[in-house]
């Protein structure tokens, strides 16, 4: 064969903040997208060696294996309390938690509300996929009315199980919150918006503006019983009407930032 010399142009690479390992996430799950966004932002801000992550319990339990910086592992729901402990003794480090909706909005609701109310200078990446993924798709506090799960086989009955929780809206009412938004990972435009929000969340922490949280609407094709593409569509058609994308709390100082 003829030896053709071509100039290489790198267009896509693994962020430095992501470890070079295979994840356990199911095909079509958007956890991988969320991980990548967080890693890209940490690379861009140059804060990788200055980060301590707090993993939660659920599908993201092994997040500590996928990010390439110091990590600790919290009991179910307690990541915001553990992150508080880390941040209070290392106030100049960046501290993030990465939590799912079962972890954050059910068993850990007390810890997340208290951390937000204190204006704890931590960043929370909150994946909402409307069910408990790790344990096999049970009803979560975020499961939509009528949504079938393995523990609501006839669909979530609001007469019995009550209503889903809109976490971002609720936490945004607290004065300690500096930046609380909801984004979605169902298409490229929304993914780009999500990345910008992850950046702003870490900027909130960097500038000491209080608690920051990015709620990311995420897919769970395995437990939803949908193909990856159908799952993305379901986020758009079913989840976004109940969980609108929006900025629920943005500290005015963030608007002045030039990134």
């Amino acid at each position, binding site marked *: 064969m003829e030896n053709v010399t071509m100039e290489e142009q790198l267009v896509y690479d693994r962020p430095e903040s992501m470890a070079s390992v295979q994840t356990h996430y199911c095909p079509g799950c958007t956890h991988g997208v969320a991980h990548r966004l967080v890693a890209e932002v940490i690379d861009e801000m140059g804060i990788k060696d*200055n980060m301590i992550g707090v993993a939660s319990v659920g599908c993201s*339990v092994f997040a*500590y294996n996928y990010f390439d910086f*110091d*990590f*600790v*592992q919290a009991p179910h729901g307690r990541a915001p309390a553990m*992150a508080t*402990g*880390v941040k209070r003794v290392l106030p100049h480090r960046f501290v993030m938690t990465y939590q799912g909706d079962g972890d954050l909005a059910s068993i850990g609701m007390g810890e997340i509300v208290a951390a937000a109310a204190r204006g704890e200078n931590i960043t929370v990446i909150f994946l909402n996929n409307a069910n408990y993924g790790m344990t096999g798709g049970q009803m979560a506090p975020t499961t939509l009315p009528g949504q079938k799960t393995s523990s609501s086989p006839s669909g979530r009955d609001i007469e019995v199980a009550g209503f889903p929780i809109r976490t971002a809206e609720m936490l945004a009412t607290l004065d300690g919150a500096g930046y609380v938004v909801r984004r979605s990972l169902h298409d490229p435009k929304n993914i780009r918006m999500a990345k910008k929000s992850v950046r702003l969340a870490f900027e909130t922490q960097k500038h000491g503006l209080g608690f920051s949280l990015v709620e990311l609407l995420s897919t769970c094709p395995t437990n939803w019983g949908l193909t990856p593409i159908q799952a993305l569509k379901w986020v758009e058609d079913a989840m976004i009407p109940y969980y609108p994308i929006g900025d629920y709390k943005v500290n005015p100082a963030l608007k002045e930032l030039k990134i």
Partner: protein
Amino acid sequence: MAKELMKGNVAIAEAAVRAGLNAYFGYPITPQTELLEYLSSRMPELGRTFLQAESELGAVNMVYGAACTGARVMSSSSSPGTSLMMEGISYIAGTELPVVIVDVMRGGPGLGNIAPAQADYNQIVHGGGHGDYHPIVLAPANIQEAIDLTYGAFDLAEKYRSLVVILADGSLGQMMEPAELPEMKPAIMRTPDWATYGSEGRKKRILSSIYLDPPEQEKTNFRLEHRWQEIKANEVQYKEYFLEDADYAVVGFGTSGRIALSAVRAARAKGIKIGLFRPVSLAPYPEKELFELSKRLKGLLVVEMNAGQMLEDVLNITRRQIPVEFYGRMGGILPMPEEIEAEIDLLVNEPTAANGHPRDRWLARFGKKN
């Protein structure tokens, strides 16, 4: 340094400060609250971290997170709050972190009351959290001892990457006694080779209690058990009183041991050859020492402020070779020296057969009295 008159809770708090406490996280609960209140002004004054958590669940997990960084950390609570901390305690043990927790025990079960009790013995010594783990448990009987044990607890915790519990009770927390405080150390922030404080200049570290692969989990379990063997060999603490020529002994820890000493003195004055064996480390328990002692005794009386939780350990250790009797008060009631003295008389003058359980005999006696 001159002696000062101090309340137990405050003395424990100041001893921790002087030991280099970097961060304290806690939640108010009687009869421990003065400890938290004192630190709420003392820690910020020294530029150290104090945070009142939203619950004991929050507090124990804040301590868990802060301990991961290499900082000297402590929390404190009382029985119902300590129950809430059990989840975090198991995780801290599983992650092998140095943490000091003070439990100022009160009457229970349930909400119980705010009076002194010792009914957390099982929950603390034999573990209320899930999984195989062993905290080091130290039981002071006076305020000086509470200061000394607290001051040394952090070194012990760090030496073994272990949880250390100071097991006190409401009377010790609330009483005032003259005591001497140790030398002041600056806030301690260590950088041991396991701590997670940011990975600059080194590989990333993970601190976790999860070992999904059972053989890996078992390896960790073995590591913890072997470490416990080492702690058992090196860290036993106990006090002996009038035991040189004794025919009988009372065994009691903390406040009940202290009250029993008055009864032992009164019995000695009547010519009864009796002494007191007071375990200071409840875990590791002074097993060998108590067994050796029991071999030269005619009988033992175990006194506790519970229904005989340590009693079971004493029965195991002494292998039922000698008569053992039990006397307990519960629900926040302190045993009076005269009550213990009457039990000593009974032990010496009306020895019972060694069969049967001392708790049954105690209940039968107490049933008659009430």
